[in-house]
């Protein structure tokens, strides 16, 4: 509400606050504030001014010099490099061992790193992505984004480490897709369908356009409600031949590919029937 605009409740509260400040009469007294700067420290060394007097000399700020001195190898610091996330991160740059065997004719390693030189890290150099977004993605990827789990670990809260919206265990995976709050769940579903639709649309425009068999998005009616236009002639359901050994397992519906592309082989034409298993000689990209 706008202050000092004649609202009775606001004017009454204003009067009470003034009365409490001037008359020093209060119904409720909060405990005195502790030192607001008790946790801020600055390094200093004793410095002799005269024969018997000594005063503290404040050390200079070396933050800028340290930043200039740091290079890529220093960034890790004392970070734990035995974690799964770090290994997966490094795996992107490494070459698969099986494929790294030297070719019998050329005696040179034929394998390439898992990451694609042009597309895999395109996000980091896109001009329309701001620094803050890159920072957040990096924090999410390295599991250092601040969550209730970290708040609890660093003793910044006395309560349990739960999400304030759904009261579930707060962690990095909960932020993008596991919160059970109704509004957030709709946001997650919308974001997922939008991303899958965009990817499928882009693929359908390229040379692999005719290879799309299915895409994991919602039914077209719901997508149109969300102003998303899925590509034509795409099946939603993942065909059974993708999971030949997990037909009836519940995990099949929890972990499934976003899309299935079946590469056509020259002279054979397109794989038109999604429910039919492709021939063994065809190549699958999941």
């Amino acid at each position, binding site marked *: *509400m*706008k*202050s*000092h605009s004649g609202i*009775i*409740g*606001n004017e*009454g*509260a*204003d*009067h*009470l*606050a*003034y*009365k*409490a*400040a*001037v008359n*020093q*009469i*209060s*119904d*409720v*007294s*909060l*405990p*005195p*504030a*502790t030192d*607001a*700067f008790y*946790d*801020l420290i600055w390094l200093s060394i004793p410095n002799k001014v005269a024969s018997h007097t000594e005063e503290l000399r404040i050390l200079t700020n070396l933050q800028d010099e340290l930043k200039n001195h740091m290079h890529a190898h220093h960034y890790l610091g004392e970070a734990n490099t035995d974690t799964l996330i770090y290994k997966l991160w490094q795996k992107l740059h490494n070459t698969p061992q099986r494929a790294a065997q030297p070719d019998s004719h050329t005696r040179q390693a034929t394998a390439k790193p898992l990451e694609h030189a042009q597309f895999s890290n395109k996000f980091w150099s896109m001009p329309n992505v701001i620094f803050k977004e890159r920072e957040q993605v990096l924090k999410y990827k390295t599991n250092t984004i*601040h969550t209730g789990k970290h*708040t609890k670990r660093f003793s*910044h*809260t*006395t*309560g*349990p480490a*739960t999400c*304030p919206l759904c009261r579930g265990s707060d962690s990095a995976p909960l932020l993008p897709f596991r919160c059970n709050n109704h509004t957030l769940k709709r946001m997650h579903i919308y974001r997922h369908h939008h991303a899958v639709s965009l990817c499928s649309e882009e693929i359908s425009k390229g040379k692999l356009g005719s290879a799309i068999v299915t895409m994991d998005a919602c039914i077209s009616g719901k997508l149109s409600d969300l102003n998303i236009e899925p590509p034509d002639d795409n099946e939603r359901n993942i065909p059974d031949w993708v999971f030949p050994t997990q037909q009836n397992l519940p995990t099949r519906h929890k972990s499934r590919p976003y899309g299935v592309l079946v590469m056509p082989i020259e002279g054979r034409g397109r794989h038109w029937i999604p429910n039919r298993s492709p021939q063994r000689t065809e190549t699958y990209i999941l």
Partner: protein
Amino acid sequence: MQGAISKQQIIGAGIFTPTTDAGYSNTVTINPGGSGPTLTINRAELAAVLVLVQKGHTETATDSASSLFQVRKRLLNPMAVLHHLHRELLKDIVYLIQFHLLLSLFTK
């Protein structure tokens, strides 16, 4: 709910509940307890919010957008207010909102 600061650097806060179930207005005056750098109007306003949530009120009207922003910031991004001047008040407010109340509606 309101905070005030006088010319002698003394702060106070007040809560005005227009009509209670008993049929009369309920008033509460608050001593925010600040000193030195913490003797600010913002402390008075946050103190009023803290007393409100301590008393179990779930609907609050205030003219202090600053307090609401800070409570929201403490809820959604606790690290951003790690060195806030009134971090203790914010911590208590957020703790009560998160774990004691079912729903809190703050209105500016």
